């Protein structure tokens, strides 16, 4: 009668890392490969127990390079697969994240961000991997990254990451932070049948006619997995629709790389998610994500209480960046404040989209995220 052994349902008090692990199971993830690292270890520990209970695989690999490789392998063998890490491990994964992009392997990477560079501050929060999530692997590509700001969202957005990853055959990153990962809050888990689950488009062509990288109209190719009756080749080399390497054709390179980017760019409207609070009449707008958005919300409420027309735009998808949303509010508002736990990363995107509207950046490094008061002061100064 141990409740934990079935798929969870109902209200639970848990931390963000565990909510993420449960979200993965609810999403249908049945393979986890990882390597212990603070502050993401609890995801691995929880899945070491839970994966086997739901008939899935947990394997601790020798490092994060191997973890990412195993995840892609499992994805090609037909399972929904995930790994979880923090900054140093995320760096090690980058080359194989590029392989997942190139071979269009659906998979989820959770990065519970801590303070960097290098070993940095392992037990303290950071938002310093935002640009790495987008540009970390070499070559041009587009990727999906979601930033949860509550324990509930650690659950919800992990599911969303799997759904988007399966839809677009692209790695999806859950870009959390130490506070959200370790914080305990209530999570409401709906019955399994009420949770929206998306599975990859299966190959349905006869095996002789199957071209593994021939896209449909949505630019995403249907996917066969090993052992399903299609003998096909996949490679990290530039390849044609049949998966065959074409290392000296500029035409194939252009077509492939452009499609890999376009399948995300042209579908960005369907992927992008933001939360908008009190924006309709806002003179000043805070753009914040992750745990910082919680401080920003408190600051915006305080500003409103003091008669300042403040609002909050919270990007939930950091990548693709919600530039249309930012461009729109930039036209209506007098100033934008961007607090981040780094030296200025997403603010560059905000500035690009905001054009002439002045953008104030508020940096915070070290122990705590911004306090509501710090953000409120910035709102007041700029209003």
């Amino acid at each position, binding site marked *: 009668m141990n409740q934990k052994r079935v798929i969870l349902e109902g209200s639970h008090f848990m931390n963000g890392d565990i909510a993420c692990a449960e979200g993965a199971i609810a999403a249908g993830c049945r393979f986890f490969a990882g390597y212990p690292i603070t502050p993401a270890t609890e995801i691995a520990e929880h899945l070491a127990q839970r994966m*086997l209970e739901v*008939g899935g695989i947990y394997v601790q690999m*020798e490092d994060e390079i191997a973890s990412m490789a195993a995840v892609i392998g499992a994805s090609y063998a037909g399972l929904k697969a995930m790994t979880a890490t923090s900054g140093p491990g995320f760096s090690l994964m980058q080359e194989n994240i590029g392989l997942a992009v190139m071979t269009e392997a659906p998979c989820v990477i959770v990065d519970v961000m801590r303070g960097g560079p290098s070993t940095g501050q392992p037990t303290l929060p950071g938002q310093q991997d935002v640009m790495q999530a987008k540009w970390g692997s070499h070559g041009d590509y587009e990727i999906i990254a979601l930033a949860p700001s509550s324990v509930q969202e650690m659950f919800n957005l992990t599911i969303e990451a799997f759904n988007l990853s399966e839809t677009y055959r692209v790695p999806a990153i859950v870009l959390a932070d130490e506070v959200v990962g370790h914080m305990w809050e209530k999570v409401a888990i709906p019955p399994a049948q009420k949770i929206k689950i998306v599975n990859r488009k299966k190959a349905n062509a006869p095996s002789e006619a199957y071209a593994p990288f021939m896209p449909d109209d949505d630019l995403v190719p249907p996917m066969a997995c090993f052992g399903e009756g299609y003998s096909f080749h996949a*490679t*990290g080399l530039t390849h044609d629709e049949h998966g065959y390497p074409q290392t000296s054709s500029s035409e194939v390179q252009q077509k492939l790389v452009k499609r890999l980017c376009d399948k995300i760019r042209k579908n960005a409207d369907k992927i992008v998610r933001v939360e908008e609070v009190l924006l309709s009449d806002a003179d000043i707008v805070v753009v914040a994500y992750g745990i910082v958005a919680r401080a920003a919300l408190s600051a915006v409420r305080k500003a409103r209480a003091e008669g300042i027309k403040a609002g909050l735009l919270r990007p939930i998808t950091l990548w693709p960046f919600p530039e249309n949303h930012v461009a729109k509010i930039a036209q209506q508002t007098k100033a934008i404040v961007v607090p981040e736990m780094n030296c200025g990363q997403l603010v560059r995107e905000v500035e690009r989209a905001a054009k002439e509207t002045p953008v104030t950046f508020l940096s915070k490094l070290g122990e705590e995220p911004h306090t509501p008061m710090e953000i409120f002061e910035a709102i007041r100064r700029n209003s």
Partner: protein
Amino acid sequence: METVMAHPFAKYLREAMMPHIWCSGCGNGIILNCFVQAVDELQMDLNKLVVVSGIGCIGRAAGYVNTNSFHTTHGRPIAFATGIKLANPELEVVIISGDGDLFAIGGNHFIHAARRNIGIKVICANNFNYGMTGGQQGPTTPVEALTTTTPYGNIEHPFNLVHLAAASGATYVARWTTLHVRRLTQSIKKLLQKEGFGFIEVVSPCPEIFGRYNKMRTGLEMMEWFRKVSAIENFSDPAKAEITPERIVVGEFVDIAKISYEKLIHEKIAEINEKKMQW
């Protein structure tokens, strides 16, 4: 009128990928041929076979065989194959890759996969250097050998791959040269039928790159070297099987039974679910 018969192994190869990239005198074709022969003799279900390779000349082998195949990043085929095997243990997962890929950049994955006893099979073409990038020193380059990055002679000690594999826990370990075609084929057949992590090293000629700097400019000269110095010593001590210019010990070194990781984890899953049923 003349009838053109298809090659008996044509069905195992992807014609669209030909011509291959390998130099004349290279041993990779022999290794691929022995592998295909073994697969044919075992009548393996090609749909259940996955060939994985890393980066390097032999890495292209995955693309040439007409099965499920994946050409991964440099050094990572074993880690990638681990994911495939655990996700679907019914698949037969074979890695065909080179000594630099498997033992320099990928060395860590090799020892850990062997330690875990994951049921994947590794065939390593050892050509003593990095051929694809033009002949640099690698983890198997003999002492004093000349390469483009050891112009004064190699001062590093090479790995003894069979010793490394045996010490790491592999259930099957063998070494052959590309001269030992029939024995290699039989050995691959054995490898493919083993439970757990198995390893075959194939000492392979690279006359165009390695040979040219080391006074063996043709495949024939390198094969002649293998012929002269190789000695079959089955189940001899792998620790004493270091490759030197004077001596290449070949044969089977390890052939033991050990339950595989994938079997153990699926037993655990079954155990947990049985307990669940009892509640």
